């Protein structure tokens, strides 16, 4: 598929990791979508920003730690990661707390980015 016909896919992540499986299973779709040569972006809003928190240790809850997968996204050419600034601030987090490089945007700029999408997937 050529660049011209690629659709803009956005994955919206608004849920914390581990409390529910949405974060993990969302990531599985992102990885698959990379194979389809679409224009893929991920946004992290509200408790979704916690998915990117550095230092997750899941041994005590006997569940797989999937946060290293975010680091692997680059290898799949998924490089557009956006984080809602207000969500970070409301949670006392800064970019330095995050496991990957992201673009932090004010809420309304994130909204403008959403407006440009063809397909928005939220879980």
């Amino acid at each position, binding site marked *: 598929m050529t660049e011209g016909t690629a659709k803009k896919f956005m994955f919206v992540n608004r849920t914390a990791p581990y409390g529910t499986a949405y974060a993990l*299973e969302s990531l599985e779709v992102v990885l*698959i*979508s990379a194979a*389809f040569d679409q224009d893929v972006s991920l946004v992290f809003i509200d408790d979704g920003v916690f998915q990117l928190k550095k230092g997750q240790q899941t041994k005590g809850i006997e569940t797989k730690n999937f946060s290293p997968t975010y680091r692997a996204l680059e290898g799949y050419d998924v490089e557009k990661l956006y984080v809602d600034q207000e969500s970070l601030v409301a949670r006392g987090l800064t970019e330095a707390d995050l496991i990957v490089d992201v673009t932090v945007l004010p809420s309304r700029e994130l909204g403008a980015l959403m407006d440009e999408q063809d397909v928005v*997937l939220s*879980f």
Partner: protein
Amino acid sequence: MKFGILVNEGPYQHQASDSAYLFCKAALAKGHEIHRVFFYHDGVNNSTRLTEPPQDDRNIVSRWTKLAEAHGVDLVVCVAAALRRGIREENLAPGFRISGLGQLVESGIEADRLVVFGD
């Protein structure tokens, strides 16, 4: 217009599957096409042929089956989510098929709109 549908929750516990079904029915009645309904997360639980709801309640699974039969709607259950939750060929209701997540992305590409129903 061609619609793709994503259902993220199972039957009965959340309204998502009901809303998605009623949306599909209304779209078909208006002459639109439902390109595919993709069942992901607990949504895969909509495809078990073993449900037996009370007589006075709707049968969510068989409604989907009938929609597939009457309108040729492609009902696809995510294989990875299904394996985790105990959905296999042996308990799959008629009209559903198990396939990969690529089918969801493809639906996003091919449909004019993709509508998500979940929790």
